């Protein structure tokens, strides 16, 4: 327990993660030395996690405006207009370090946190997606140097994380509808757990976190405050990991999804009374951030008497209460005289609701405990005048940092690729995730048109209108390690392409930027490059960034992760009936590859060595990602949306990890036992059968179309400047790929389905 009598010295400040300069700045703001409580408050608010001190100068470069954007970055979540008076609130956030220290609770509270960000805005959460990155869970060339101990541990982390996600979302009653899981050696000691939540609301019912009205009561609602999660934001999220990091387990919060469900219903009901002025959830930095941020946004002050805070443990100090990150709590400002209406709603749901303070006009965050002032800090200085760093940026000596070198040794002409295709399908990144997603309730609230695996994006119908929303997340860290800028652009493009494949028009994005230690110039270089890549791609694809989060210090023992920006793209479908799945529908349909690019080259030897195939089959990660062509991506997106709106095609699936061969197989696996028989000769310029089958250049999708609609497909493709190449037919029987005069892949559908369907489950359950 930290005693209030501790004398604050520069040494104590340093132990709180504050630099000498930052400490001097605090002294200047206060005009005196802070006491220990005030120091604690500054240390969390000025932590990297809360203040974005290393990233803020760069985040300004992201495009944040557009015709659909109602609320950009700066609130609890981004908001876009989805028509008919409705809006969608959505945001993605990381919970990486807690998920490594305590996978189950770390992932669970990650989901809980992002859900609160959504319903604090007055929107009811209707979907969650999870973008997960783990170290290898199977041995083989793709596992790099991972030891068997490491692999075993990665399986345990994965199991804990997915159980934690399911535990929280299933009980709370929000469907977990999509996301992705990718395996790379760099995530062994630093898994990524990024959770995206989507909510909907009537536009006029949106709530914001801006305190107003001098004298208005400040009301604490939800769970009681305990000693859990103290310094979660500052110590866990804002420092690298070392061997001692396991000792930080007490810094991880503990989640209670049942309580959060009650909090959701109570908050939405209380908001409808009209008695609430402002509301914000207590996430990172708990009571400290909610009070200072609400006050600061409204240009007001807030005075709180901590003696009145509902407490789970006895004799908590002001320091502990202000820094606690106990979950499932909210702070709100009500209209004076109407507080009883608010209390009544929360009491109906069995929740604490206590007036703990009031809005003032002096701009100060003032904390009282046992009748004495325990701290007094200008709220605006705390929330908005934190340090901003232009950290040194330096490109690494080599362009990119390939983990291995070399080019893929190609098979001889006409060689049979069937066996290595089965191995590729069994690679955990490519293999079916059904075993994982079956552990999530993906259907509750009965809006799930496409849940996990049904389409390239999750699709939620809206009961209030005939429209639907599509959502997808993507992020290619391996490409980011080779070229942070190109990797980031590909991530935006792939997420948008996935949304378009499902039939929706991409309209906005959210991002979670997972990087290493920003104090290292080469990490900062990766970050600035990625920001520029995201900015350029989001501008070109007309998907402005509406919010998100930055997660730095993703390194353990000095080894940073791949620079991994995760992009979530939201799409709007005018009619839910336009939704297109990724599985083939009818025997006899023609299979086409749509290609937005004018350049006919599918893969060079250089780009092919950065492919999933090169990594999984040959253990090679080198070269450069395929050159991105944003104009081509835009053409393909427009074409797909057009095709969906005219109901021309039966299925659409983008070509990404594992190339056209994997896309085709997945479209078969998503069907009722239908197979594909194709020839890849006409696809474009290819070096050989492997680059044709497994090459990953963007701006392409596999679609199937009834013979009667082929003419219309070609016309729509031509109108949008997209090449449509017929490559084969949907049929019963063997799965077959030809290249030149040779059949290079052939076998029964079941023989390919089994390794794809079973490998992940077998790795985790029997491994």
């Amino acid at each position, binding site marked *: 327990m930290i005693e209030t009598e501790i004398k604050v010295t520069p040494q104590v400040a340093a132990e709180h993660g504050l630099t000498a300069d930052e400490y001097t700045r605090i002294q200047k703001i206060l005009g005196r030395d802070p006491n220990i409580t005030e120091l604690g408050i500054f240390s969390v608010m000025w932590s990297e996690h809360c203040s974005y001190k290393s990233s803020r100068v760069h985040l300004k470069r992201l495009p944040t405006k557009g015709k659909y954007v109602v609320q950009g970055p700066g609130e609890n979540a981004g908001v876009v207009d989805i028509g008919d008076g409705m809006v969608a609130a959505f945001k993605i956030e990381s919970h990486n370090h807690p998920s490594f220290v305590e996978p189950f609770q770390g992932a669970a509270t990650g989901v809980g946190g992002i859900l609160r960000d959504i319903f604090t805005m007055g929107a009811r959460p209707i979907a969650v997606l999870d973008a997960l990155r783990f170290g290898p869970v199977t041995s083989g060339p793709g596992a790099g140097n991972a030891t068997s101990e490491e692999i075993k541990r990665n399986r345990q982390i994965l199991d804990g994380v997915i159980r934690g996600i399911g535990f929280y979302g299933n009980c709370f009653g929000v469907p977990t509808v999509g996301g992705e899981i990718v395996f790379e050696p760099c995530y062994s000691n630093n898994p990524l757990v990024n959770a995206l939540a989507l909510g909907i609301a009537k536009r006029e019912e949106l709530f914001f976190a801006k305190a107003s009205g001098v004298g208005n009561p400040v009301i604490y609602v939800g769970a009681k405050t305990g000693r859990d999660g103290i310094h979660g934001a500052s110590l866990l999220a804002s420092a690298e990991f070392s061997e001692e990091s396991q000792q930080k387990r007490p810094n991880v919060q503990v989640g209670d999804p*049942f309580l959060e469900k009650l909090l959701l219903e109570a908050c939405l009901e209380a908001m409808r009374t009209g008695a609430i002025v402002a509301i914000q959830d207590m996430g990172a930095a708990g009571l400290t951030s909610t009070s200072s941020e609400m006050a600061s946004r409204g240009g007001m002050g807030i005075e709180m008497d901590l003696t009145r805070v509902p407490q789970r443990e006895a004799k908590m100090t002001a320091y502990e209460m202000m820094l606690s990150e106990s979950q499932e709590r909210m702070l709100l400002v009500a209209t004076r005289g109407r507080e009883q209406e608010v209390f009544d709603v929360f009491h109906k749901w069995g929740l604490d609701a206590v007036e703990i303070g009031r809005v003032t006009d002096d701009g100060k965050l003032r904390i009282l405990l046992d009748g004495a002032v325990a701290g007094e800090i200008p709220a605006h200085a705390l929330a908005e005048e934190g340090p901003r760093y232009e950290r040194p940026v330096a490109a690494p000596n080599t362009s990119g940092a390939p983990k291995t070198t070399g080019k893929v040794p190609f098979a001889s002409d006409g060689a049979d690729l069937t066996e290595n295709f089965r191995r590729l399908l069994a690679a955990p990144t490519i293999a079916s995730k059904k075993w994982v997603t079956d552990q999530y309730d993906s*259907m509750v609230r009965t809006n799930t048109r496409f849940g996990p695996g049904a389409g390239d994006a999750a699709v939620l119908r809206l009961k209030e209108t005939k429209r639907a929303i599509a959502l997808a997340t993507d992020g290619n860290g391996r490409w980011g390690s080779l070229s942070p800028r190109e990797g980031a652009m590909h991530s935006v493009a792939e997420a948008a392409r996935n949304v378009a494949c499902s039939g929706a028009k991409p309209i906005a994005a959210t991002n979670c930027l997972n990087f290493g230690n920003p104090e290292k110039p080469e990490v900062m270089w990766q970050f600035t490059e990625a920001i520029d890549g995201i900015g350029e791609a989001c501008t070109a694809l007309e998907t402005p960034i509406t919010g998100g989060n930055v997660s730095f210090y993703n390194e353990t023992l000095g080894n940073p992760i791949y620079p991994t920006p995760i992009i979530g793209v939201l799409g709007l479908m005018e009619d839910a009936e336009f939704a297109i799945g990724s599985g083939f529908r009818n025997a006899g349909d023609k299979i086409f590859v749509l290609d937005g690019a004018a350049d006919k080259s599918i893969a060079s030897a250089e780009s092919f060595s950065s492919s999933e195939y090169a990594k999984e089959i040959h253990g090679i990660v080198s070269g450069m990602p395929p050159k991105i062509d944003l104009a081509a991506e835009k053409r393909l997106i427009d074409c797909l949306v057009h095709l969906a709106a005219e109901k021309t095609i039966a299925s659409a699936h983008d070509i990404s990890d594992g190339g056209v061969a994997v896309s085709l197989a997945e479209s078969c696996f998503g069907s009722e036992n239908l197979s594909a028989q194709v020839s890849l000769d006409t696809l474009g310029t290819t070096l050989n059968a492997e680059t044709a089958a497994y090459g990953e250049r963007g701006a392409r999708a596999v679609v199937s179309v009834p013979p009667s609609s082929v003419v219309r497909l070609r016309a729509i493709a031509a109108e949008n400047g997209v090449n449509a190449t017929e490559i084969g037919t949907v049929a019963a029987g063997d799965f077959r790929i030809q290249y030149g005069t040779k059949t290079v892949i052939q076998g029964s559908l079941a023989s390919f389905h089994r390794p794809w369907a079973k490998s992940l489950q077998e790795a985790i359950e029997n491994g």
Partner: protein
Amino acid sequence: MKFGVVQFPGSNCDDDAFHAVASVIGKPVEFIWHQSEDLAGSDVVILPGGFAYGDYLRTGAIARFSPVMKSVDKFARSGGLVLGICNGFQILLEAGLLPGAMMRNKGLRYLCRHVHIRVETTDNPFTCAAKKGQVLKIPIAHNEGNYFCEPAMLNGLEKNNQVIFRYVTPEGADAAENDREANPNGSLHSIAGICNRERNVLGLMPHPERAVESPLGSEDGLVLFRSVVASFASHTAVTA
């Protein structure tokens, strides 16, 4: 006729049941708060899915003590129609309105996916509009759906035709002993849903309210709601 959907703290399929009745079936429906002993004149009471009271202690163990369950008990014992879905089924077991208990799924994991269940008998208000042997594709979403009871009780259930739904293969064949594809949670005799002796209380683990609109994957759950409506209409016609 009127449906009532009970809302416990932690119910999370209450809105879905309400939507299925109000918007799809087109019948009057009202929510009933767990602290109320007034069933609001409902002719059919639905205990929806979710995690009532967080399912702390044991699924349904706390919910059975809520004030509304006193009225539900009285209503059921006087012949009123009660439908417990998923968590609602678990609550009916705890309340003693249906026999047996739920254990954790055999694989010790929560499972959400479409399964196939077979209508075993139609001589009750919940499946009277279905055909005997009809196979329905309906989703499950639960962690504790592994139905268990003592041998004597199981014999009684079978003898009295109280097993209304059984997990089967997509073709409608019995699930083999360890076939977790067909019998996902390991239930005894592949039991997915049972009724009481009087046949007016039904509990089932699959979610029929999630299977009432084909764009969401299936509308096979409709037959359950239609049966209730039909049986009520004929019942009213007879007694009128």
